[in-house]
Every structure is written in structure tokens, then in C-alpha cells.
């Protein structure tokens, strides 16, 4: 039910609406809850609304940590 998917903002239509790219599928979503979203940002989409932003730096840090944990060095 809380299923939500990462999607990339490709076009801002107005203050509250954007087109996002969801693994190749373009879809119109509300960005009223993430007014800071800009073209190129990744947002998390749930029931037609972007509910949050994804931070690429933090995502890279988590991936790097997986690799370290997996090597047993962390």
C-alpha cells in the first residue's frame, strides 16, 4: 500500500504538476508536496503524488557502505 517508486522529473508543467520518467514511462504527477523539485531531480512517487526527494550523494554513500560491509571492513 505504501508502495512508491523513484522517478526522474523531466518537465515542470506548473507550480504543482510535473512530468516524470518512471523507467521509460512518462507520467503526470503532482509535485505540490515537493515544491523544491526541479528538472533532473529524482522524486518518490506514491498514488500520483511525489512525496519526497531522493538525494544522490546519500544514495552513493549507502551503496559504498554495502560494498564495505560486504568486504567485512566496516
Amino acid at each position, binding site marked *: *500500500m*505504501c*508502495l*512508491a*517508486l*523513484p522517478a526522474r522529473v523531466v518537465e515542470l508543467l506548473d507550480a504543482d504538476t510535473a512530468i516524470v520518467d518512471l*523507467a521509460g514511462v512518462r507520467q503526470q504527477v*503532482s509535485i*505540490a*508536496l*515537493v*515544491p523544491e523539485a526541479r528538472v533532473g531531480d*529524482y522524486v*518518490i512517487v*506514491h*498514488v*500520483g*503524488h511525489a*512525496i*519526497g*526527494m*531522493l*538525494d*544522490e550523494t*546519500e*544514495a*552513493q*554513500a*549507502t*551503496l559504498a*557502505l*554495502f*560494498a564495505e*560491509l*560486504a*568486504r*567485512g571492513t566496516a
Partner: protein
Amino acid sequence: MKYVDEFRDGALARNLAHSLAAAVDPARTYSFMEFCGGHTHALARYGVVDLLPASVRMVHGPGCPVCVLPIGRIDLAIGLALERGVILCTYGDVMRVPASGGLSLLRARARGADIRMVYSPADALQLARTHPQRDVVFLAIGFETTTPPSALVLRQAAREGLKNFSVLCCHVLTPSAITHILESPEVAQYGTLALDGFVGPAHVSIVIGSAPYEPFASAWHKPVVISGFEPLDMMQSILMLVRQVNDGRAEVENQFTRAVNREGNRAAQAVMAEVFELRDSFEWRGLGEVAHSALKIRPAFAAFDAEQRYALQYRAVPDHKQCECGAILRGVRQPTDCKLFGTVCTPENPMGSCMVSSEGSCAAHYTYGRWRDIPVVAA
């Protein structure tokens, strides 16, 4: 970066499993509750459970909104559709939840009720705009992830002055449910549940932030690790919980830093606070009445509150006598402990709510785990 595939790497998962096996203290066992149904589903679907050391037990929590929606609330929605002739809109997950009299929303539709599945509450609002001669009711369910979109459409309906749109609000709150699990008197009835920590919800926490979980660490001394929904996220979070337990720490840690911070989404919190207020009490399927655990629509938006508009009277309805959903939602029983599991109760014909949503413990186990219960014997 796709934010999906990178977090499902099988080789990394196996290596993480080795790290977990090395981290566990052989002298003890660990029980962690994953509160959220999304985590329950991911554990089963990706086989994460098979990668965990035998001493780590994952207990499924009540964080599946379809599963905790009581029969009486669905009866209200069915009544509106069958007797008041409204167009009733809701999410697809809700359609098959068993209600009173052998009905469900799907079966009520077969009897002629105008019940429609929507992807977004904005779709329900659009139906009201395009059908001005019909009353449209949106049955709104879900935790804090799903609440802000409902708040937005209520505010939009008020701005447009729509006369034919209302919301039957069944939104529930995550922190109150965790509190209830930790301190409810019914624990005596179902037996005690020793929990060593919680895997905190991913998308709920995007909205509310990590701060609301801090009392569980400080007052109850339970570690909480907020975790992403991908399999590697979950394995890392479980490792973080094991380390907290080993160190004797009880902290709120955030594994899902790419999307969650301490404060949460302020814009979403603001619109929720504008439209909704706390209910004194709300019935949860399986948990019973839980104080301050749900939201209702503020008086300023009363014209869009289906409960007021149609003077609805809530009536509690007990579950099937042999259904173990109550104990399963509290984590004190497993799906296979239930006599109905996999016999009369299946995803195609669910008796209890845990079998309805793919996030329910019973549905997840039926779909991905039931063959694991059968020992492999050479022919």
C-alpha cells in the same frame, strides 16, 4: 543511478549475509519487528529471510493499511454505494477485503453498486468534476505515506467549492500503533512478545521524519532502524539492529538516508495538519480500539466529510471466529499457526484481512514462502 537495481545486487546480498552471520552473538537469539507491510512483502519476495542467520527472527507487524481496516468501515462504504447510490472510489487493494454478509466492495459492485478503483485520490476528485449530478465518495485508507495526497484533494475540493465530493477518512498513524504493540494490555491475552528492535518504515518516514520514533529508543529502550524497501537496504538495517543489540544501544538509526531525514516532509505535514485532526479512538482490525491512532477531517472541511454528510454510524463487527489475524498482526502468531491458512483462506478467497493485500503476512507467506514449510524428501 535508477535507485532500484543498485539495491538488489545478489552478490552483495550474499556478502552482507556473511557479515550478518559473523555479527550475531551465538549465545543469543534476536527478534525484530518489521512494522511495515512493504518490508514484510520484500522479506518474502526476495528471499531475505533465507539469507538471515537462524538466530534472527523477523516478526511481521501491523503496518499494512488494508489488513488493519476493520470490517465496520468497509460496511459503511458498501452501504453508501448500495443504499445511497454514490460513486464510491478507492484503491485497488481495498476491493477484495471481506466485509459483513459475505460482501466485499467487489461483490457489492457485482450487485450493481457503482464502485470504482482509482490510482490516485486526484482521480476521484476528477470524477466528481465530470459527474456533477452524482455524489462521489473517496474511501481514504493508509498510513502517513498516503495521507498527504488525501489532504491535498480535500483542500482542492474546498477551493473549488465542489458540492458532490466527500472523503470517508480511515487514515491511521504509525507511531501510535507501535506504542500499542509495546504497551497494550491485550498482550496478556495473546502471550508476550519479546522484541529486540524495530525495522522502521521507509515511505512513512519520508513524510514524518525519524524524530517520532525517538521515544521508542529513549523510553522503551528499543532500537529502531529506518530502512529502505530494497533487499540490500533490509539486510543492512538488520545488521545495524544486530549491532545495536550487541552493543547494548537503543537508538534511532536511519539506513534510508537517501530519502529520509529527521524532520520529514514539512510541506506534507502542513497540509495534513490543515485538513486533519486526531481522532480520540479508532478500531484497528486485529488490534481493537487504539486511542489517538487515526485522523479525522477538521470541522472547517465538514462539508467534505462523508461521515458527517451522510450521518454515518460506525458499528464494530467481529472477525471470523477461527481467523488468527489479530494475533498475527501483533506478531505473536505466524500465518501457519492459523487453521484457515491456505485451506479456506487463500488470496483468491480471503477470509481474514492478512490474506488480502500482497503486503499482508499471510498473503506474503502464501505467495512466496509456503513451499518452504514442506521438508524436501528424496523420492
